[in-house]
């Protein structure tokens, strides 16, 4: 497999061209990670083609891009995530309770689970919109859970509506 960075050419970490000493002046709220092992999939292409938009919209916090080699090495350790990448993982460094022994706080978007480009782009946009809108929230994880709960209810309503339509056609 080619060792190029799937997102933006060679990784700044490995290319030596990244300004390694450029540490954000203020303590960042989030760490963003992009894990992309290099699948030739619609969602991966959406991520690569819109990578600059991610960088533009979350410029407040560090964005770490794993290259092919790093992504594959990581996914080999956590095979349950193979095929779910590209993954955008957001770690909340200021979460209530801090980094307790239960692990880091945050959330992630597994774009690889979406097979249609329009859905992948929509999910990416919604994800960035959500992070931007809730970046000052004292408990963004709770906000994510509420959002998922609401989306779950909307999904249930959609199923019921589809069922009713199916019955009506008969």
């Amino acid at each position: 497999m080619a060792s190029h960075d799937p997102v933006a050419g060679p990784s700044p970490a490995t290319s030596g061209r990244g300004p390694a000493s450029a540490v954000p002046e203020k303590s960042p709220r989030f760490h963003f990670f992009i894990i992309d092992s290099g699948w030739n999939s619609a969602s991966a292409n959406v991520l690569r083609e819109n990578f600059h938009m991610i960088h533009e919209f979350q410029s407040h916090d560090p964005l770490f891009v794993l290259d092919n080699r790093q992504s594959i090495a990581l996914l080999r350790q956590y095979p349950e995530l193979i095929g779910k990448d590209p993954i955008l993982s957001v770690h909340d460094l200021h979460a209530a309770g801090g980094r307790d022994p239960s692990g880091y706080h945050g959330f992630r978007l597994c774009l690889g689970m979406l097979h249609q480009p329009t859905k992948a782009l929509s999910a990416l946009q919604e994800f960035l919109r959500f992070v931007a809108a809730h970046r000052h929230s004292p408990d963004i994880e709770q906000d994510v859970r509420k959002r998922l709960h609401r989306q779950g209810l909307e999904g249930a309503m959609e199923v019921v509506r589809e069922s009713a339509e199916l019955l009506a056609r008969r």
Partner: protein
Amino acid sequence: MENLSLSITMLIGIAMAGWIAFEIDWRRKRLREVYNVLESKDKHITGDLEHMVELGQLKPYRGETEA
């Protein structure tokens, strides 16, 4: 005959309710596979990522791309 008709209607109703429950559950799981909040089972991978940052294996991306 009436009993048979009633039974068939009930069976269709039960099957429909089962399908709705299955579909809702499937969509809920699917939603959580796409978006999820990090949990204790994710502590190792999140810890590994942060460790890579601490070791300097990952640097903040600043927008440099191949010409």
